[in-house]
């Protein structure tokens, strides 16, 4: 019997953990990546990775609470069985990474240290300085290099995934990729293909993401018929440092270690921040969210920072929007030990030492909760059936998606330090199912399916290269697309703007059809690779805009002020109660209508076709997300009574 072969696209945390596990199970893995896998975007993750641990367990924490925090933080938009399974695997995943040599920070006694992250009251986050993503990625990279040495893994670095190859029965049998150095095309025959290609932040022009996060692989799968879920849910991280080329992330761990967000009460107070007395500082997150303080979930922190600058006019500077993120009250030694990596970034790129002066930060596009639609098989305990070929499989048999490029784990908003977990989990977990579902693919790369697929890609490539010289260039088009998306589809969304943006994006797509290349050669032509990637941004951009336009509600990162549900205005208890009842009625009606995943399919006319899918909420019934809402306690009380009543009726009935 020949060895099974799996093709993995992407060598970040998800792709590498899948590769490691598959190799260990005797599979030959071809690993395709735009860059040497050690340079994947996972290295940019800073803060840490969540799991229940020995200490939090003794404080009343358990896997169920981690699961609950994740779905509550995600506004209940994720199917619950995969999330439950992930929370249960989390402690084992941290243990594994620890064994692989990740230098997690230690307590004086030599145990792993943990810090607190957003959306939870427990210290669940293990960390390695402020470069946890880098450290986790390196540990997996090292294991994969070991398998490479044994001949089990072959890396194809500087290769671009162009299209999955699907046979007449609708089964994925491989893919066509292109060598970005020699520009040669190659078909890869495989028993299964796993997409682990990460996020698509470059649709927004500048974001916290790496230049390789174009979303092109995902878009190409979508164009080939893979369904896409919850495209409109894009996380805008509350704290980033604006720059001309990118918006650099300032990790949530800065707040996890005690960093405080504030603005001067006096607009654009020109004094040195250190000279502004405490009573003239507005610690708006702490004042508005006494329970979670600076560690409210990201969507909320982002809106608050955005609002304080725009609506309240309290931006620190006049000409640009920013607030202070202040670490200066924390001892230098602690900062260096726990946050060194990120403070160096700030120092290097801004020329200011954040140990001495508060940092100036503002929100930036950071993560896509949405992604390729994937399946799962639920077990009798509400978790997943391990080894089921359905887990992480897209609607195309034999084609899987894991990591940031799937839609499965984070619902409408991702909690900090859960992404590293979902990437490693989905990578490790899917492997046995991929093998179980792997049907031996007997066609080699000389079979007609592959020859036709390669020919098609060569023709597309040649057509782009031989375009007549036009006016526009792909870099300008990319910048314009980023401007449209950032203006209309980030923190605040309005239907008129989204409608306009959709038209603008369609027009820009037409411009792209005629944009000219400045390099028509066939050696390391980065110009043509980028042009193709920009072209593939349009289908996803349209999907995001359309999904956002249709979803008339507020949920997690998707915020439409026209459909928001403000808190209680009344002050009299009776009126308050009546208002809370109405609030809960509206909440129930909204849940019924909108607690659904947006499912997009690429239409033949190039426009997305959108349908909705029910969300499996059988384990934790949806409840109002009340972080800091005025009158939240009254609403909570009414809600509690309603659920108790419903339970009683159910029991009696």
């Amino acid at each position, binding site marked *: 019997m020949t060895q099974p072969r799996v093709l993995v696209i992407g060598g970040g945390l998800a792709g590498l*953990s899948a590769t490691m*596990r598959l190799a260990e199970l005797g599979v030959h893995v071809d690993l395709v990546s735009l*860059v*040497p896998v*050690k*340079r*994947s*975007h996972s*290295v*940019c993750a800073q803060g840490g990775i969540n799991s229940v641990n020995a200490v939090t367990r003794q404080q009343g924490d358990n896997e169920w609470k981690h699961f609950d925090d994740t779905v509550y933080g995600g506004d209940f938009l994720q199917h619950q069985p995969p999330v439950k399974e992930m929370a249960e695997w989390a402690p*084992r995943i941290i*243990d594994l990474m620890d*064994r*692989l*040599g990740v*230098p997690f920070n*230690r307590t004086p006694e*030599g145990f792993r240290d943990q810090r607190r992250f957003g959306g939870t009251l427990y210290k669940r986050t293990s960390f*390695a*300085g402020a*470069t946890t993503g*880098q450290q986790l990625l390196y540990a997996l990279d*090292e*294991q994969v*290099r070991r398998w*490479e040495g044994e001949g089990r893994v072959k890396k194809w670095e500087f290769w671009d995934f162009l299209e999955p190859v699907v046979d007449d029965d609708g089964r994925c049998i491989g893919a066509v990729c292109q060598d970005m*150095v020699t520009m040669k095309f190659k078909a890869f025959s495989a028993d299964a293909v796993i997409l682990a290609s990460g996020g698509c932040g470059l649709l927004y022009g*500048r974001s916290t993401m*790496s*230049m390789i996060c174009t979303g092109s692989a995902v878009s190409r799968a979508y164009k080939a018929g893979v369904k896409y879920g919850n495209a409109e849910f894009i996380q805008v991280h509350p704290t980033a440092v604006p*720059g*001309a*080329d990118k918006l650099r*992330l300032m990790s949530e761990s800065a707040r996890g270690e005690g960093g405080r967000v504030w603005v001067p009460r006096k607009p654009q107070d020109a004094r040195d921040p250190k000279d502004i007395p405490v009573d003239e500082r507005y610690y708006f997150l702490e004042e508005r969210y006494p329970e979670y303080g600076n560690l409210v979930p990201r969507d909320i922190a982002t809106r608050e920072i955005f609002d304080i*600058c*725009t609506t309240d*006019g309290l931006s620190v500077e006049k*000409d*640009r*929007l920013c607030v202070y993120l202040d670490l200066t009250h924390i001892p230098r030694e602690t900062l260096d*030990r726990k946050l060194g*990596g990120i403070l160096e*970034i700030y120092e*290097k*790129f801004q*020329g200011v030492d954040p140990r001495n002066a508060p940092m100036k930060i*503002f*929100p930036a596009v950071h993560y896509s909760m949405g992604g390729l639609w994937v399946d799962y098989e639920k077990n009798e305990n509400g978790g997943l059936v391990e080894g089921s070929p359905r887990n992480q499989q897209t609607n195309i048999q034999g084609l899987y998606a894991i990591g940031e490029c799937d839609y499965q784990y984070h619902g409408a908003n991702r909690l900090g330090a859960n992404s590293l977990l979902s990437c490693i989990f989905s990578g490790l977990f899917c492997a046995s199912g991929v093998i179980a579902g792997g049907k031996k693919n007997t066609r080699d790369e000389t079979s007609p399916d592959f020859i036709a697929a390669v020919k098609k890609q060569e023709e597309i490539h040649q057509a782009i290269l031989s375009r007549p010289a036009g006016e526009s*260039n792909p*870099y*300008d088009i990319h910048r314009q697309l980023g401007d449209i998306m*950032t*203006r*209309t589809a980030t*923190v605040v969304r309005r239907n008129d703007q989204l409608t306009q943006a959709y038209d603008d994006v369609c027009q820009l797509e037409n411009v792209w059809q005629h944009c000219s290349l*400045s*390099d028509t050669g066939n*050696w*390391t032509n980065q*110009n043509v690779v980028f042009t193709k990637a920009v072209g593939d941004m349009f289908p996803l951009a349209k999907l995001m805009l359309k999904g956002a336009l249709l979803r008339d509600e507020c949920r997690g990162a998707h915020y439409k002020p026209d459909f928001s549900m403000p808190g209680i205005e009344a002050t009299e208890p009776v009126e308050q109660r009546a208002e809370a009842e109405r609030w809960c009625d509206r909440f129930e009606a909204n849940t019924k209508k909108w607690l659904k995943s947006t499912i997009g399919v690429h239409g033949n006319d190039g426009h997305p076709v959108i349908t909705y899918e029910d969300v499996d909420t059988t384990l934790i019934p949806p409840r109002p997300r009340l972080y800091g809402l005025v009158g939240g306690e009254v609403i909570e009380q009414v809600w509690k009574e309603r659920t108790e009543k419903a339970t009683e009726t159910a029991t009696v009935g």
Partner: protein
Amino acid sequence: MITASTLLNSETIAEHEQSPQEIRVRVLRQDAPGEESYWQQFAIPYEPNMNVISVLQRIAAISKAQDGRKVAPVAWDCACLEEICGSCAMLINGRVRMACSSLVDNLFKETPGEIELRPLTKFPVVRDLSVDRERIFHSLQRVKAWVPVDDSYDHGPGPRISPEEQEDAYPLTTCISCGCCMEACPQFNKIEVVQREEESDEELESRKQSAYDQQFLGPHAISQAVRFNSHPTGSMNADERMQSLTGQGGIQMCGNAQNCVAVCPKSIPLTRSIARAGRAATVWAIKKFFDR
């Protein structure tokens, strides 16, 4: 009115009193391996807070040389733009450094109004500023830079590690494999293996690997060997790493020039690692002598 669009334009328009109007950029270009290299001049408008990446982005967008001629965009590697992926090492004003963290305003203190960009010289040029650094990773393979775990199943946590040990290991694990240390090292020489006529990609690859095997590992790989030899589980195959360190192209190649530590963008104590590796090699050699 301030709107969401300010998300885009939130940089300060800094007041640079004598900031130049334009940036003149000299790039040493090469169209492909084996081709002659040539200089090309570009001029782009100056903007505050630029780094070399944004300079190269502007050059790509205009694709015109200073004399107005249409030219292909300069090829270069980058990804994260925050000095953690290790992609964008190049010679900037003659010094090896990362393009992302090289700020134009700082470079102008060296050469006002001008920037010179060249590819690394110790690695074969792929095109322009993009070089083939496969050898960096090959060295990691040579020193078995990993913890040899049994498998990825659950066996409970890893070994207890004191904060001091963690703080000792952590700086070494932040190596981004950029190649700066190798570029600066006088003992590290370029190896360029050119594909022969009718040679297959596989044959070329294996010829490359054996050429790399003969030559110096590089400071980064020595440092990784030290890091894994001091990890409780990693040390279980310390012997194999010592064999690589003391074998051909091993630690004896180091001439103690100390350039590596001076250019490392992550300030990794490479010379300390090399000193440690040197001592360990001596002990290991003596032990091996008596074990015969």
